[in-house]
């Protein structure tokens, strides 16, 4: 398998090779990998890649998939212009 050609996170353009390189270096958790690669932090907020990366970590470390913790999702779910937020604030006060 050509790992560079397998996309895991479409939003941030992260390949399987990016992931396995980090796992080979000794990184273990989803959170660590997310902080380095921004995986799951793009437009879809992990809807696609979370389960894929969970499986890769599960396979690599030979741990059950349900034991692979996934990071917390935080607001905002999609891009919001600062202007929109400031206008909402003005209208409220």
């Amino acid at each position, binding site marked *: 398998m050509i790992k560079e050609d397998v*996309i895991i996170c479409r939003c941030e353009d992260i390949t399987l090779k990016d992931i396995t390189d980090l796992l080979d270096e000794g990184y273990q958790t989803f959170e660590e990998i997310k902080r380095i690669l921004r995986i799951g932090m793009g437009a879809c907020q992990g809807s696609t890649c979370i*389960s894929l990366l969970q499986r890769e970590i599960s396979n690599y470390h030979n741990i059950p998939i349900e034991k692979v913790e996934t990071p917390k999702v935080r607001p905002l779910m999609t891009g919001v212009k600062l202007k929109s937020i400031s206008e909402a604030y003005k209208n409220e006060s």
Partner: protein
Amino acid sequence: MIFKDLVIIGGGPAGLSAAKIAAEAGVSCLIIERDPFLGGQLIKQTHMFFGSEKQYAKTRGLDIAKILIDDCLKHQDLIEIMTSTTVVGLYKDKVITTLHDDTYNKIKAKSIIVSTGASERFFAFENNDLPGVYGAGAVQTLMNVYGVKPADKVIMVGSGNIGLIVSYQLHQAGVKVLKVIEAASNIGGYKVHASKIRRIGIPIETRKTIKRAIGKDKVEQVEIVSLDDDWNIVDNSSEIIDVDAVCISVGLIPQRNLLSMIDIKTKFIKELGGIVPIINEDHQTSDKDVYVCGDVSGVEEASSAIVEGYYTGLIAARNLGKEHQDFKTLNIDYKNQLLNLRSGPFGKKTLKGLEIMKEDANVK
């Protein structure tokens, strides 16, 4: 800030059904829907549904959507609807932030029903980002909602009900479906759907998977390989097929992103589709004012989502101090309907998943 008693996030079958019953009980509610139209995935289901009459069996999915929407429109005094509106944030004090065009808004709810459904599972193979690699649901949206023919020659990866139904609908739309491949040794979906597509000449081949998509700027070919009983690729089993699209239909994942924002307790339960909120019998999450129903709490069929929606609307209304006049009858009726829906061979998986959840459901 807008104040609401009950906010329902997601206007698919579960959310619409919840709104109907809550409104019948006298609760004023707001449905927030990201898409321009209500009905969720039902609006692209051109086939007739199974189940019993109570869940509109023998009716086409898109017509069920119309029925559910009409039910809500009958309560216009109590049900407010926002479409093309995305919930961008959920906060522990029950504040919901929304975005509609460029307008950002805050809504404060007493109770929230999250009925955000599920999204398509993707999977890892070479060149899986080439244009022409589609989710089967996306293909169905293009064809049945927007009237766009997605491709001329496709291969379907996955033989669950979505894969089988979409293969049939592709055929109806004049798209050549070369074959359906399935990595497991059994066909995933209902036998009636499988028989139907076999009758029209589409083979279903088990123990096969896609190794890679091939093409320069878009999908031109795919490489298919056979798998042995240990899921390893069989030597010399490679087959290259000319196609202009690959449809991926390998399951659905509950959309629990909003729940994660407010630290709702979740658990990975593979029988329910992945990470799901832990709920009690009343469909309450670890925050008792936040309820869930439909696929977000476990991937099932639209019929179950509808009944779960009714049930959750009934309970949420009672907990807001508005008991439905038929509370007792409906309460028993909905529970029985769900049991019936889950009594078949496919329901076993859901029931097992719910048993696993109970181990953690010491939620008050």
